[in-house]
């Protein structure tokens, strides 16, 4: 009952056992803590483990459930969050050495909501420094992909992807600025949702880019993703960009299927000349699967997607340069070299080019919304290639041509949704011949997460990719 079989089950299954008191929150928390103890040294998913506090919270949850005060599917559920999210009296490093001993005095809004739902915090998860991509030396240990330790889990929510995939927690929270939930979700073979900007409060989250930072669930199944989103979504007066849009029941339509749903294939991201062969094949098979399930498939074009990478870098990095304006001057050598040179370069970008990028961003959103008038969801690979080997993607740039080839040469699949402030999810859609996960990205209209999750659930239910687990130890 308390072995490997239990811990590999989806959160929804564990929740049903907890609700019926067939499973003890204390016993479940101990199993996860044992697994973290066994494998975190290999994977570097966690920066901080809160064993004592987690067990105390589990005992409290057990007592509450026993007396009939069950709060819902996260009650007594061991979860973990990216170490970019403030946790009262628990250090929050932002993946940096500068904030290695930062102890927040309050919880982020999402933490408060998770605690109110009865969730148990196992610990804080590793990330790229300050949630930037391309960190060369992770101050808190190099994260490893649980499917093959030689490979990258991608980032920046690396630890969240690893922990959810390797069952080091029942669910994780990540933060997605330009793809930081969806990319590690794809690389680690799990479900990762970037909600619509404004749906989930940013209050108490260390910022990367004020107009794109978005917190999202990272889970093993689509239903688990819906359960976590239900708890964290909704207006927060402490976030000035929080939306008043009503929050629907995200689990309600999960079993409705996709018959008649209009699925748009983004021409610019379904190009065999751009995509790895195995990624292209897995995506083509996913499209066939959607057609077999009754969806109406059509091709759509979003021309400006080809320039999403420079538009994103101009806006995100300039915002980040502003966030780091003081620290980059006072403590430049406490930054990783990749973060430092990226922030310094963005600090010198002329304001008129920043505004030109904002104009392009507005046009990109217009093109994506126009496409979404014809179709209900958009489909593409989550990434053009499978995850790289650790170290392959983080070597210093040797020339301007090297930057262009590595940063702008490959088309960006995740940043279009970030720029357009639209929701998108990555779900598993296959594995490479070497056993690395491949992700499928499904995007949609603002605040229509329910439709995206419905499409994702229909696909998940017709495949077995989500039932596979990495072998550890």
């Amino acid at each position: 009952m308390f072995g490997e079989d239990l811990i590999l089950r989806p959160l929804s299954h564990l929740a049903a056992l907890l609700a019926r008191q067939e499973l003890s929150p204390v016993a479940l928390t101990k199993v996860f803590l044992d697994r973290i103890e066994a494998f975190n040294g290999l994977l570097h998913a966690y920066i901080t483990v809160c064993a004592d506090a987690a067990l105390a919270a589990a005992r409290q949850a057990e007592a509450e459930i026993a007396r009939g005060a069950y709060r819902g599917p996260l009650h007594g559920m061991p979860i973990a969050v990216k170490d970019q999210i403030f946790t009262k009296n628990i250090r929050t490093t932002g993946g940096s050495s500068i904030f290695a001993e930062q102890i927040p005095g309050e919880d982020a809004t999402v933490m408060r909501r998770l605690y109110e739902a009865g969730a148990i915090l196992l610990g804080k998860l590793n990330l790229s420094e300050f949630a930037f991509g391309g960190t060369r030396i992770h101050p808190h240990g190099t994260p490893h992909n649980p499917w093959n330790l030689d490979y990258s889990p991608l980032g920046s929510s690396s630890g969240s992807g690893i922990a959810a995939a390797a069952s080091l927690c029942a669910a994780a929270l990540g933060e997605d600025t330009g793809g930081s939930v969806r990319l590690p979700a794809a690389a680690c073979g799990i479900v990762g949702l970037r909600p619509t900007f404004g749906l989930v409060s940013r209050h108490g989250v260390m910022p990367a880019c004020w107009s794109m930072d978005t917190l999202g669930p990272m889970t093993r199944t689509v239903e688990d993703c819906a359960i976590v989103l239900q708890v964290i979504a909704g207006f927060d007066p402490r976030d000035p960009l929080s939306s008043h849009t009503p929050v629907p029941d995200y689990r309600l339509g999960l079993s409705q299927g996709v018959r008649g749903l209009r699925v748009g294939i983004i021409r610019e991201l379904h190009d065999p000349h751009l995509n790895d062969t195995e990624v292209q094949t897995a995506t083509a098979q996913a499209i066939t699967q959607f057609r077999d399930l009754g969806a109406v498939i059509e091709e759509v074009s979003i021309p400006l997607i080809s320039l999403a990478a420079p538009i994103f870098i101009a806006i995100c990095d300039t915002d980040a340069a502003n966030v780091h304006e003081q620290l980059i001057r006072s403590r430049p050598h406490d930054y990783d070299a990749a973060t430092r040179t990226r922030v310094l370069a963005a600090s010198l970008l002329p304001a008129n080019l920043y505004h030109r990028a904002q104009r392009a961003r507005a046009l990109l959103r217009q093109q994506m919304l126009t496409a979404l008038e014809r179709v209900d969801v958009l489909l593409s690979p989550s990434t053009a290639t499978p995850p790289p080997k650790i170290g392959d993607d983080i070597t210093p740039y040797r020339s301007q041509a090297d930057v262009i080839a590595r940063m702008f040469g490959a088309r960006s699949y995740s940043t279009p949704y970030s720029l357009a402030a639209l929701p998108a999810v990555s779900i598993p859609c296959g594995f490479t011949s070497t056993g690395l996960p491949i992700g499928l990205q499904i995007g949609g209209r603002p605040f229509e997460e329910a439709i995206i999750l419905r499409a994702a659930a229909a696909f998940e239910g017709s495949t077995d990719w989500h039932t596979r687990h990495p072998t550890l130890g």
Partner: protein
Amino acid sequence: MDLSPVDVKRLADLLHLPISAEDLPEVTYRLGALLGELQQLNRPDIWSMEPIPVIFGPDAGLSQPPRASP
């Protein structure tokens, strides 16, 4: 865009931005590449848009909910 480390150092000095000799080449490569890529955005369809962050658009859901009648 053709940008030299001397150009970048001069600009950084004007802004009192500390860029070490070790970092200067990579900062130059990064900035030069970005400036070059952004030249592709010099197009009429982009100039026709206003540079207002998309999150403030009418469909962004940021408006206040209607107040209840007294």
